[in-house]
């Protein structure tokens, strides 16, 4: 019975993957990618990896689909016809895939209780989870306690990913710090502002007087200005 379920899920996965490659409509491809994640989650569930399945369903099928759709809203949903022949990439994929399959031949059998991974630390974790930590979910005790360093690293990686996304995607001009004879170090948005007769906040002119234009108390601050620009004013239609 297990075999039937696993085989069915794997066939669905393979069909979905090939279909993603073949569809030219990116909207369809994104939806199929979501289905791929959902089927993967089902597969993880049959492998008793419910925590992983949970994450796959929430992140893979949920959030990343939304982010893909957000991207499609910007770039359009039709893929351009490729200009090159896919022979070289195909060759690379086959060689890499062949090397990976060759590598799996040395791995222990699937579910082998005598595999090295099951003998070294896993028994300590499984027994210690109940005795040392008192938590029935071994995944949580490994993740948060036994391997707390790793999880802290992962959390930092997630945070770093956001920093990268914001550096790439958060738009808006950044102020320059310049020395002004009368006012000392100031933040300016353009050279014209160096004339003291001009307004000190040209951003208000550029953004229009939206209903929440003055709502940000730290609007002048260098650090928050770019974040303000990254989020369009709800009432002001963007050109």
């Amino acid at each position: 019975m297990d075999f039937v379920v696993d085989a069915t899920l794997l066939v669905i996965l393979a069909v979905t993957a090939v279909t993603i490659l073949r569809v030219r409509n990116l909207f369809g491809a994104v939806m199929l990618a979501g289905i791929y994640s959902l089927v993967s989650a089902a597969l993880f569930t049959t492998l008793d990896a419910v925590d992983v399945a949970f994450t796959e369903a929430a992140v893979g099928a949920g959030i990343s689909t939304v982010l893909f759709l957000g991207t499609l809203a910007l770039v359009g949903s039709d893929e351009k016809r490729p200009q090159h022949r896919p022979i070289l990439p195909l060759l690379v994929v086959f060689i890499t895939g062949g090397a990976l399959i060759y590598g799996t031949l040395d791995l222990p059998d699937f579910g082998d209780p005598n595999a090295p991974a099951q003998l070294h630390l896993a028994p300590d974790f499984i027994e210690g989870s109940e005795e040392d930590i008192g938590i029935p979910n071994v995944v949580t005790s490994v993740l948060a306690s036994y391997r707390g360093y790793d999880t802290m690293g992962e959390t930092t990686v997630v945070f770093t990913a956001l920093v990268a996304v914001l550096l790439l995607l958060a738009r808006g001009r950044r102020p320059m710090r310049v020395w002004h004879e009368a006012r000392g170090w100031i933040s300016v948005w353009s050279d014209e502002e160096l004339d003291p007769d001009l307004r000190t906040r040209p951003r208000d002119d550029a953004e229009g007087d939206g209903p929440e234009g003055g709502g940000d108390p730290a609007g002048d601050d260098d650090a928050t200005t770019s974040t303000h620009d990254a989020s369009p004013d709800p009432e002001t239609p963007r050109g």
Partner: protein
Amino acid sequence: MDDKVILRVGAKILIPFILVFALYVQFHGDYGPGGGFQAGVIFAAGFILYALVYGLGNTLRVLPPWIPYLCSALGVLIFAGVGVVTLALGGEYLNYDVLAHDPEHGQHYGILLVEFGVLVTVFGVMVATFYAFAGRGRIES
């Protein structure tokens, strides 16, 4: 989506349950599947669903961008801070045994705190990433 009555009403019914479910996943993570990562994503999904149905503008009013930005850094700080506290109490970094008189209770507190840190960071990062993508165009049209 002004005319999509079913979507609007459906989302309105679902969102509170999504948020509560995220908290359940968070605090039940010791006993069942789940934990900070999943809970953070689900909590963020509640807000993202709101943004998809009711528009980005309304969402920015509920949850201004500085909140997810703050959260994404705060969670890492909580996690690392627990380690500093355990150091100060005389244990190794991130050894929760010293957090309470009974080591088992200390482990419970420690796991609860670091999982909360993970929740806060993941929630902040997911919402902020969504803002970064959606803020560049008009996804709500």
